[in-house]
């Protein structure tokens, strides 16, 4: 009896010790990867971790090709690439642990917030040391990544909102692609007979689309630190956009029976969408029978549209900054950017990179560079856009008026800014 007792307790002790050892090993293994690159080496070397949000298989394959090209030209540097699902959530956790990847995507919308929180590394000293050319980057894209006179990232690519039109439907309606607000209405009118529901325009109930029209009307919602949602120019643009829905010329994608306007176009529920270059390769891959083309965004009082972009940046606590900078330099430099935008999945963010991508002509997108403003907002504005889009949805449903909506958003913006 006594002997049995002893061996049982011994076994328990062994189990506990084994578990403790394995936990300890795991913890120390985590620690071991710190500071793997040589400290203050003359030439940058070692491993660079690159992280981005999840992208489609085609995009990921292309990115890996670009990375291989980089590694060939920089034999002392190895890149480990990770596509991270739930990107924002995961990145914030890494920032909190002070172990961010060396190089990562920085969304133009999130950039001011992450910069304000001190998470992003200013790149000016690296730029100066390498004599990196900044001028070729489209200035309107750089604004999102500049703060306090410092530069925090370089755009890796970009996309503006332009028109996508089903050319077969256009021909059937015997109409020409619209270039002004008035033409948009008249062409839509003509297209009514060609779409099943009689609503040819796909109008997302989102400020991330409607804002283009605000810019076309010469308006803006933020002047310095003052929100101007209630200004007449903004109101007129909103009235025009909402008016298209109210007059039955268009509707939100969900109402048309699609998840987004690209899908609405593909399902032939809409003839015209206001999306970006990401419609390629989505449409050819999912709805190959549709005949469509890119067309320039319509003009109001002036040309205006939205640009969506993301930069390559480094974190304040990234480990291998020297090699990280080499990677950023390459990816956003002429060679890397040219390779990256060669397949037509994205547009080069530099004016000195010319590409001839497959698929429909990208000229309307490239020409938008002059008038496309980056979608980027001060820290704390996510709540403003949540309110704004909910209000816009309510307006679409007829449950809210435009002036009331604009006042509400304006108040919310004032709150966010102080």
């Amino acid at each position, binding site marked *: 009896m006594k002997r049995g007792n002893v061996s049982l307790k011994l076994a*328990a002790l062994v189990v*506990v010790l084994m578990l403790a050892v394995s936990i300890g090993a795991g913890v120390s293994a985590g620690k071991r990867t710190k500071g793997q690159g040589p400290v203050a080496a003359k030439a940058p070397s070692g491993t660079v971790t690159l992280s981005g949000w999840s992208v489609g298989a085609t995009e990921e394959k292309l990115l890996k090709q670009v990375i291989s090209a980089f590694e060939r030209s920089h034999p002392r540097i190895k890149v480990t690439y990770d596509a991270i699902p739930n990107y924002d959530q995961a990145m914030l956790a890494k920032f*909190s642990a*002070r172990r961010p990847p060396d190089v990562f995507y920085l969304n133009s919308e999130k950039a001011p*917030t992450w910069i304000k929180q001190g998470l992003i590394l200013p790149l000016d000293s690296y730029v100066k040391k390498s004599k990196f050319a900044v001028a070729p980057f489209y200035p309107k894209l750089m604004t999102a990544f500049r703060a306090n006179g410092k530069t925090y990232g370089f755009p890796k690519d970009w996309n503006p909102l332009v028109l996508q039109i089903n050319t077969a439907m256009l021909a059937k309606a015997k109409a020409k692609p619209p270039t002004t607000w008035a033409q948009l209405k008249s062409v839509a009118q003509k297209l009514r007979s060609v779409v099943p529901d009689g609503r040819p325009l796909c109008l997302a109930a989102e400020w991330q689309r409607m804002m283009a029209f605000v810019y076309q009307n010469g308006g803006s919602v933020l002047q310095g630190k003052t929100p101007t949602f209630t200004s007449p120019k903004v109101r007129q643009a909103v009235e025009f956009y909402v008016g298209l829905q109210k007059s039955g010329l268009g509707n939100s994608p*969900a109402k048309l*029976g699609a998840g987004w306007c690209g899908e609405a176009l593909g399902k032939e529920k809409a003839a015209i969408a206001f999306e970006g270059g990401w419609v390629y390769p989505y449409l050819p891959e999912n709805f190959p029978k549709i005949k469509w083309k890119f067309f320039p965004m319509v003009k109001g009082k002036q040309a205006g549209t939205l640009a969506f972009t993301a930069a390559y940046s480094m974190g304040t606590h990234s480990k291998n900054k020297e090699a990280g900078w080499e990677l950023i330099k390459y990816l956003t430099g002429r060679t890397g950017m040219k390779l990256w935008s060669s397949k037509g999945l994205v547009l080069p963010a530099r004016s000195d990179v010319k590409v001839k991508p497959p698929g429909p002509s990208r000229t309307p997108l490239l020409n938008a560079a002059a008038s496309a403003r980056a979608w980027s907002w001060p820290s704390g504005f996510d*709540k403003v856009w949540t309110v704004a889009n909910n209000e816009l*949805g309510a307006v679409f449903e007829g449950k809210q008026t435009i002036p009331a909506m604009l006042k509400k958003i304006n108040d919310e913006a004032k709150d966010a800014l102080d």
Partner: protein
Amino acid sequence: MATEARTERSIGSERVREALVGYAFVFLPLASFLIFFFYPLGYAFYISYFDWGPLGKIETLGLENYRDLADDELFHKALKNTLRYTAVVVPCQMALGLTLAVVVNQALRGRTFFRAAFYFPSLASSAAITAVALYILASDGLLNALIGTDKAWFAESGTALESIMGLNIWTTSGTMMLFYLAALQAIPTDVYEAAAIDGAKSWRTFWRITFPLLKPGHFFVGVVSVIGSLQVFDQAFIVSGGGGGPNYSTMTVVLYLYNQAINDVRFGYAAAVGVILFALIFTLTVVQRLVFGRMEAA
């Protein structure tokens, strides 16, 4: 083999060794509980008094986060939606779970199959089910094809949250059924026999005998249901793309918390939302304990 006399000392040290073994076994789960549950809970309480970011404390605010929440219209909308959601889902879950349990408890043929079939939806991940539901409830989806309408169920403010309610009631019914089934089978059969001889027909037996004796089941299902409903997030997030729309209809407390934390990176403010939710859940659980609490022992 010489047998040793057991001295007081050896008994004492044997007790100590036994205690140590006990602690050794409990140590890991206890440590896990403290580290992964208790500590973050306390931490959240703590940071709710600050403006807190990924890199730590930014500014001491005291109760300002809570004062701001008192005036926060979007938070109020989230709270109202969540409470309305809970008020509908909890009774429905309880009723449906109880009904299924009563059905499955009959000695019907194939009851094992039905028990498994009813439980099946609970096994699938809520994200997967919501993704499928998005297709079924689309304006050109299966449901509309069956009942002949063309509503975009998740895209209209009058039906979006209600669709999520229906989805969740259906998904969790199997789990509630199992809880009720356990409570149902704990009722001794001779009580039913006595009731039958006392002239009680099926409905009367259910209302006067079964239902009151299910108090432990009501309590457990009620509490689990309330706690789950107040924390609804997955479906609201997937269905609205994180925006809580259309027209705020799918904005729930946890969705608001998530947006504040991840999008606006206001960790302290989000923590304050969490603390309020915790207090709400705690209070409702205590209330339920008082209503259903006193369990009857046969």
